[in-house]
Structure formats: structure tokens, C-alpha cells
């Protein structure tokens, strides 16, 4: 079970999209996992053949549990009936006696049927009976508790779970990360003008929004200040070469996810635009991929559409920085002795003082400004 976020402890396998014996290549979606943040597609990291699926759909398992076993092309399948061992070496040392299968919930037949009728997730039902068996009464109590706390049970349950997850991550952030905040106003008149020109040449469906330009600029500026791009793990900063931009996306009905646009530093502006619309669509449709949720190296949040002028955000651990953008506003702008009306955006940087200092943070915002003044170079 992959970790699909620093705050994730367990996930429910919803379905397998591969069968034993099937050939898979790196990046293929092999399974769908339900997390607090919604359904996520899990990708495979190696070219291989699926040997065994070890977890039944519907099972909730902790992060780190082996879901399936792969074998190299041409390698003989594992003998049937032999319980596969945990990975040897480090993995084995970390989890010496974990059974391969998640323990099966003990549920009485009528309780199982009742749970289906009431739409109760058995993994969340607390057994009261002997030997931890979930009885019909337990299911009904669980459903009643849920009904009492929510008018629209299923949806609100999920939202509540997501809220819990966000709460945990944000509390951890504020508890552990010494934030510092920098902000600056950036004249984006040139950038917008350039975009409008570009968009004239494009079909409507391929038009690029300012958001894509901002993301690309952040990626480029980060290359100049690499101590803002990476993770704080085990008491030390771990810089990451690639820039995976986490984009905060508000979900309909509440909730928030920040899936990543991978390798934003190596994507063109139109490519980033494409990736962005794809991410938003899939985030709202609940079809994000595991890698997108797990490996953002920095997060960008844009609350301009909400009419906000400046964002002072909370870093998403284990990342070390968050870049915020407000709305584009027309402002009187004094420059070289003249006064102009310019389109201006307020950019902020929230950064982890353990990983960077304000001086470098300031250099990042300057670089961002510079990038946006030369959009044709992006």
C-alpha cells in the first residue's frame, strides 16, 4: 500500500486493474485505492509480470503492506499455496512478522448483509461481541451514529475523513515547521499581454491561463533556489532534483487535495496547462494517481479566483515551501519616474526556516518576478 500523502496511514483497495500473469510497465495503473482524499489510481514502478495479488478488493490495509508480488519477465511463478514471504533485507527487518494477507474482518452473515443494505463500511464498525466479531447490532449502531452526525451520511463521512487528514497534516506542520513569510507584488501586465497574443493563435480548447505561466515561473525560480524544493526528513533537508509542483485544488463540496504536476521544470507552458486541466478534472472526479499524491516537492496555491489578494499558507509536510498567489488587480504602478496602471499579482512564499533562510527566499521571489517579465523565455 503506497503512502499517498504524509498523513496517510491506511487505504482500502477498491479494485485491481491487472490480473496475475499480466505484463505491466512502469507507470501503468494497476489498482484503485480509496483514501481519505478519495479514490486514487496506483501506478507500478517497474516493468515486470504480475505474479500474485495478495489483497482482496474491499480490504483496508496499512501503508507499507504488500499488495501484490511481481516477477521478472521469464521468471517462474511462485508456487501456488506457498505463502509468499515479505521482501527480504530492509523490508523484512522493518516488518518481520507481518502476515501477507490483511486479517479478515470477522463479520456475522446477517451483519454483512445489513452493512450492505445500510452502506456501512465494515472496516469502521467497532465490534462489541466476543472475539471481535461484528454483529448486526454493531452495524446498526454504526449506521445510527453516522445518521445522527450527518444528514447525507456517506458524503459527509468522507469529507469528515478528509478534514481529519488535513487537520492532522496542518497541525503537524504548524507544530514542527518554523514558518517564515515573504511577499511581493509582481507586475504581470507583460505576461498577460504575451499570453493573450499566444492565445489568439490557439484553438479555444488549447488556450493557456495565467495559472500555467505562474506554475512554470515557480518551477524555473526554484531551480535557482533549490533549498525550497524537497523534503525535510529525519531532521535534515533532502533536496530533490526534479520539480514536482503540488497544486492545491479545492474539491466540490469541500475538501482539498494537492496533486503534483511532475517535472514542471522540464515542461513547456502549454504542457503545464494541459497537465493542470487534467489534474483538476481528475481530482474532482476522484481519479488521481498514487505518484501524484505522494511526491509533490513544493506546493503552489492560488486563491485569486476567490478574490484574495495575498495568501499566507501552511506548508504541507514533509515539503519545505509553499508559494501563494492572489488575484490579478489593476494598481497604480510607479516606475522609472512615471505612474502607470498595471496588472499586478501578489506572490508570497511560506518557507521552512530549517531548510532555508529569508535571504534565499527573497532571491526566489525576485527570480519569480524576473521569469514573469520574460514570458517568451518560459
Amino acid at each position: 500500500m503506497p503512502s499517498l500523502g504524509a498523513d496517510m496511514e491506511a487505504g482500502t483497495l477498491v479494485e485491481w486493474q491487472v490480473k496475475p500473469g499480466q505484463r505491466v510497465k512502469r507507470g501503468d495503473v494497476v489498482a484503485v485505492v480509496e483514501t481519505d482524499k478519495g479514490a486514487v489510481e496506483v501506478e507500478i514502478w517497474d516493468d515486470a509480470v504480475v505474479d500474485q495479488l495478495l489483497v482482496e478488493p474491499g480490504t483496508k490495509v496499512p501503508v507499507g503492506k504488500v499488495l501484490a508480488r511481481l516477477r521478472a519477465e521469464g521468471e517462474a511463478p511462485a508456487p501456488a499455496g506457498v505463502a509468499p514471504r515479505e521482501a527480504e533485507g530492509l523490508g523484512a527487518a522493518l516488518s518481520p512478522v507481518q502476515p501477507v494477507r490483511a486479517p479478515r474482518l470477522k463479520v456475522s452473515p446477517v451483519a454483512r448483509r445489513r452493512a450492505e443494505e445500510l452502506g456501512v463500511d465494515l472496516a469502521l464498525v467497532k465490534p462489541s461481541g466476543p472475539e471481535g466479531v461484528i454483529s448486526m447490532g454493531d452495524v446498526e449502531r454504526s449506521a445510527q451514529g453516522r445518521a445522527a452526525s450527518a444528514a447525507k451520511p456517506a458524503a459527509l463521512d468522507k469529507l469528515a475523513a478528509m478534514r481529519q487528514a488535513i487537520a492532522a497534516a496542518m497541525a503537524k506542520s504548524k507544530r514542527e515547521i518554523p514558518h517564515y513569510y515573504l511577499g511581493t507584488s509582481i507586475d504581470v501586465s507583460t505576461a498577460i499581454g504575451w499570453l493573450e497574443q499566444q492565445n489568439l493563435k490557439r484553438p479555444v480548447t488549447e488556450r493557456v491561463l495565467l495559472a500555467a505561466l505562474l506554475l512554470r515561473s515557480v518551477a524555473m525560480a526554484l531551480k535557482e533556489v533549490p533549498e525550497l524544493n524537497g523534503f525535510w526528513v529525519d531532521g535534515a533537508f533532502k533536496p530533490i532534483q526534479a520539480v514536482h509542483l503540488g497544486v492545491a485544488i479545492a474539491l466540490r463540496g469541500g475538501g482539498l487535495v494537492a496533486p503534483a504536476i511532475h517535472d514542471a521544470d522540464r515542461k513547456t507552458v502549454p504542457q503545464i496547462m494541459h497537465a493542470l486541466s487534467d489534474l483538476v478534472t481528475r481530482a474532482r472526479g476522484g481519479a488521481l494517481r498514487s505518484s501524484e499524491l505522494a511526491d509533490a516537492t513544493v506546493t503552489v496555491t492560488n486563491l485569486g479566483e476567490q478574490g484574495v489578494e495575498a495568501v499566507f499558507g501552511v506548508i504541507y509536510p514533509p515539503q519545505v515551501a509553499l508559494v501563494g498567489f492572489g488575484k490579478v488587480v489593476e494598481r497604480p504602478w510607479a516606475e522609472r519616474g512615471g505612474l502607470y496602471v498595471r496588472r499586478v499579482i501578489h506572490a508570497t512564499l511560506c518557507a521552512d526556516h530549517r531548510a532555508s533562510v529569508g535571504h534565499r527566499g527573497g532571491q526566489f521571489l525576485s527570480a519569480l518576478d524576473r521569469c514573469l517579465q520574460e514570458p517568451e523565455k518560459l
Partner: protein
Amino acid sequence: MSEAVRTTYREALRQALREALLRDARVFLMGEDVGCYGGSYAVSKGLLEEFGEQRIRDTPLSESAFVGAGIGAAMNGMLPIVEVMTVNFSLLCLDQIVNNAATLRHMSGGQISVPLVIRMATGGGRQLAAQHSHSLEGWYAHIPGLRIVAPATLEDARGMLWTAICDPDPVILFENALLYNLEGELAADAGAVDIDCAAVRREGADLSLITYGGSLGKTMQAAAELAHEGIGAEVIDLRTLRPLDIGAILGSVRKTHRALIVDEGWKSGSLAAEVCTRIVEGAFYDLDAPVTRVCSREVPVPYAKHLEDAALPSVPAIVAAARRLTSGRD
């Protein structure tokens, strides 16, 4: 409804025999000591004097011979009632019962009927040791071609016999010997009852106690104790062990979601096992706990009183099993 009279299980059986002998001249009773001695359990006391040797016939100690004679009489138009002293002794006439009585209708293509009633005492608890104390009715309930009934109440002791006599096929009536002294009220005009349906002897919502015959009393007592603890036990008296009234069993289990079977037979390959299987086949998705059984310990029933008590189902054992079964309920 006429007035109720105070009577016993034994007396109810005797009145049932009298009624049958009076109603139909083809009815006669035979068995060991049923005449001069009045029956080993005194059920037929006084009948020889009332009905004469032609109709109350003492037989030699040969179960195979007199049960075989009963089958022959039934095939030839009589309505015999044959008493076998205990089910343990019926093994001597197993061939007659299983190979002849049960099969002849089927083997003759329906040409031959065997309208025979066999009465047997069954069950332990009287310190009569292993050769007189077993509950083998479950064996007979295995055999197609037989109907097996087990009166557990005064009404059934009074009413099952005539219905059994009217059945065109062999019926075995099991009388738990501990019930003979059972006392109670019975309607003065009590008569024939059905031998098809199980009966709900007590209603309850939390679990179904399924039993029959000699165990009904213990089970009712256990249900009363459970009620004091707030556990509502429904008591099902099977009444007819073959064919089982599966609808009644499943109906109760679908209501209570828990089943405990109380059977004086042993667990292995038993009637209790059959009832359990029927429940699992028919009401699996209604079960909220595993089906449980209280049966006799897997030993020949001991002679020593404390050992015999320990070997047979008891009220405390039923109560304890019911408590375990319902510990996770609402």
C-alpha cells in the same frame, strides 16, 4: 373449550390408546409386558382387563419377531400399535423397521401400505446405564419411509397417537421415559393433533432454542432463567423429527438471528447436526452468530448419577450456551 383436568403424560398416553382401541376394531397393542404387567412404564395398565387378550397382546422377548408380526398385520389390513420397551432394544428389530416397514410402499410401487405405529421409550436420566438410556431417535429420523414424532407435552401425548394411526405409513412415536410422570392440566376433550408442524412453545426475540421430547422441559426452564437476565429466548418444539418442519425453524432463526439446538442425542452425525445444517443452508445470511448445540457428551450414558448428570444436557448448560451466544447482541 372444555374444562381442564389434572393428569399425567402416562395417563394421556393411556387415554390415547383407549380412544384408538375404542374407535377402530382394527387397532391392537402388542409388545413385551404390555398386558398382564401393564407395560414396563405402566402405560397400558388396565387395558388388558378392558379390551381382552385379542387386542392387548403380550409377546415373547423377540423384538424382531413381534415388530415383524406387526408389519405383517399392518400389510394385511390391521392397525397395530407395537411397543418396544426402549429404543436401545429396537436395534434388535432394526432390520424389520428399516428394511421392511420403511421400504415396502416404495418397493411395491405403492401397492403395499404399512400403517404401523411403533411406540418406544427413549432417553436417560434414570440411572439405567448405557443399555437403557440412549436417545437414538436421530438414527430413525435418517430413514426415508418413516415418520418420527416425539410428544413432549400432555397435549401431544394425548393427541399424536390417533393421527399416527391414521397415517398410511409407519410412524415411530418416541416417549422420553422421564416424561411419563409429567403432570399438568389437559383439556377434558383433548384429542388428535397434527404430526406435521413444529410448535413455538415460548416466544422471544434474541435467540431460538430448538429442541424436542425430553429436552423441552429443560429448555423451557432455561428460557425462563434467561428471561430474568433480559435475554428473550424463543423455544421451538420440533414435535416431528422426520420430516422436519424446516419452515418453522428458519422462520424463528430469521427473527432471532441466533440458534441453539438442544438434543439429548450425541453431537456426531446427529439430529442436532441435521437441524444445524438446514439452518446454515436456509438462513445463513440471517445468522448473527454461529449455530450452537447442547447435546449429550460423547460417551455411553454412565450409570453413576453424578456422571450421568454431567453427560446429559442440563439447564445450566443451556443457559450458559445461550449467554455466550447472545453476548454480542444489542
